[in-house]
């Protein structure tokens, strides 16, 4: 695995952008995943999966606006 490889660097940057630690252990595991011939694990698959996972984590506590209770503004009598 070439450390200047675009997929590797992008994946690393993506993890950085997501706020993950990118220590040596993480890097070596990332290289392992990208070199693993058993999975067709390219950047096109990896990033959306990470992103989807992050979204799922966030959605465990979603902030929904209160339910709408339609009302109207009155203008008094004139």
């Amino acid at each position: 695995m070439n450390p200047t490889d675009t997929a590797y660097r992008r994946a690393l940057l993506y993890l950085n952008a997501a706020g993950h630690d990118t220590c040596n252990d993480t890097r070596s595991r990332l290289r392992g995943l990208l070199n693993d011939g058993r999975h067709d694990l390219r950047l096109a698959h990896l990033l959306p999966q990470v992103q989807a996972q992050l979204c799922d984590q966030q959605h465990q506590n979603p902030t929904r606006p209160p339910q709408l209770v339609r009302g109207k503004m009155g203008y008094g009598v004139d």
Partner: protein
Amino acid sequence: MALTEPRWHSVAFRRRLLLALLVLGQTAAGVWLLTQNVSAVNSGWPAGTLVGVFTILFTWIGLGFWTAVFGFVMLRRGGDPLSLSRRFATTSVSLPIGERVALVMPICHEPVQRTLGNLNAVCQDLDHGGLLANFDVYVLSDSQEPETWLEEQAACADMNARLGGGRLFYRRRRVNLKYKSGNIADFLRRWGARYRYMVVLDADSLLSAEAIRRLLGLMEQRPQAGIIQTAPRLARADTRFARLQQFANRCYGRIHCAGLAAIQLGDANYWGHNAIIRVAPFMEHCGLRQLRGWGLFRGPVLSHDYLESALMGRAGYEVWLEPSISGSFEESPPTLKDDLIRDRRWCRGNLQHLAPLLTLSKLKFCHRVALITGILSYLASPLWLVFLSLSAYLSIASASSGAPLTELINASPASWSLTESGLVGLTITLLLGPRILALIDQGLAGRSQGFGGWWRLMANTALETLVSILLAPIRMIVHSGHVAGALLNRNLQWRGQNRTGAVGFAEALKHFVWPALACTGLLALIHWYAPDLTPWALPVTLPLLMAPVLMLWLASLANPHWMTVPETESPTPVISSALSVQPQGKRLPTLSWFEQAVLSPHYRGWRHRRPPVKNGCKQTVLSRLVDQCAEQGSGALTPDEISLLCEHPDALASLHVRAWHSKPGSPWGSVLARLDDSFVTQRSTAYTAANHNEDTAWIGVAS
């Protein structure tokens, strides 16, 4: 002793009658003194007009003086026994179980971190006071620039997470119908029926939990109250200008507010923020129609607050000003320029009130007077200009006819008559009297220590008075321009205020170049025709000539202990909290907010979801925008297109994937390279907030 209706109404009537008699008596005396001088020299329409204008102006300044006297007397008596705060002293709040209160902050292109820092401070104080669980907090944005509203959105998300999540809501209107009042009305139409009370904040507002608790308590105990307004003190002043305003507000505002509250009682005015509103009657009676006249009197109402309180009063509800509720703050514009820009909007809004004043029926007399005083507060400037011009004209006319006028504006104080001395003395008393009364009040109340001691309080008052005298002619000229611009219906752009200062000399010069040139010409003219009058013209013309320098000096940062007020040495917790700004929302360094929205893996995690657009021309437009932006970068889209893209999570998700797969050297590839570089430089610091362990979920998913 019950606070029965006839009691406060009858007391209010007696107080207002006394005020009217005092103002009219003092005005009559002033007019008599003036006519003794004018009629001796001049007659005809200029002299008649001069007396007419003098009458209005003298009434105007007399109103301010006697209001201050009322406030002084009330404070010396230990406060107004009829005020709600004195009557209902309890601080306990017992809202029905499950009932919530809305805390709303309408914003429009404000400095995001500072504004939401203020809101964060209010929420933290509510949290510490055990009240936050009862509140739903709404940030109602009218911002249109995507870089602003994306920052607002991100900062609100961070803030919501810090507050425990769930009770802070961000809503942005895409169509800014009716400006701020329309923004509040939009909120009320959607969610207003859920709430009994609504606390309204401005972008620069700070309200302590104790103040909010007090407002809620008073509302609960006084069902007739539709609005209860606090008297905000100025805080967080950094520049010299803001510090002077803060000192004046803190030192003299106390007696003015006390006087105003004593005269208005239950017919007070809403000031637009730092107040609590009973939602149901507000929704039922306080909608504001667009004006249907012509020119200035057509379109949305710009100054909504006075009208809303008048409508609330018309509906039979009370509006109270409660200056004794502490813990209510707002900020001053940081520079003279910003103050004058804000005045332009207020001027236009107040002059618009002429239309509802003439067309709305059944408004209370007190509210009508308040609308008139609001209009006069800006009309006073052109009237003063007219007064000075007529005085100069009459003087020059007398001088050119061979009789140098020493009678009207006497160039030789040695020859002043008793009536002239009386007129000058009366005018000075009316102008400076409130300041002197305020000083006496602060001294008698033992509050001078908060202002740095008695001598410092005196010295600061003298300095503030001097600056006010210098600023008065500048304001007169600029406000006259505002009035003329409003009457000619010149276009006015509605933008957020600058709340952080910073003015360059070129900008200051540009702002005042025309008034300064006109002033130079006027001075030359006076000196040519009536050299005796030149010294009398200098107090008005010199400040205008030195306006750019004065503006620059006032815009610079002040020493922390300059113009000390009590909050300088011991800031209240809510101010301290606001000073340690927290909101942020920036996760990826060196990126614009749009670039962050596109590239952040987290962004769509907290983005409010809209149903996906599956077909139709909107989908076509979105697809085209995604293609265009993916290929040419963020600079290829207009702000409106960026807003449209960011409002549709699916389109943004598509762009997110394409941006992350862009080739090195392409527009998005360059952005990624920039991001990478910033991480490299930051890697040694602790940017990555939470160090996720090696069992992080993404590894599991990827495997």
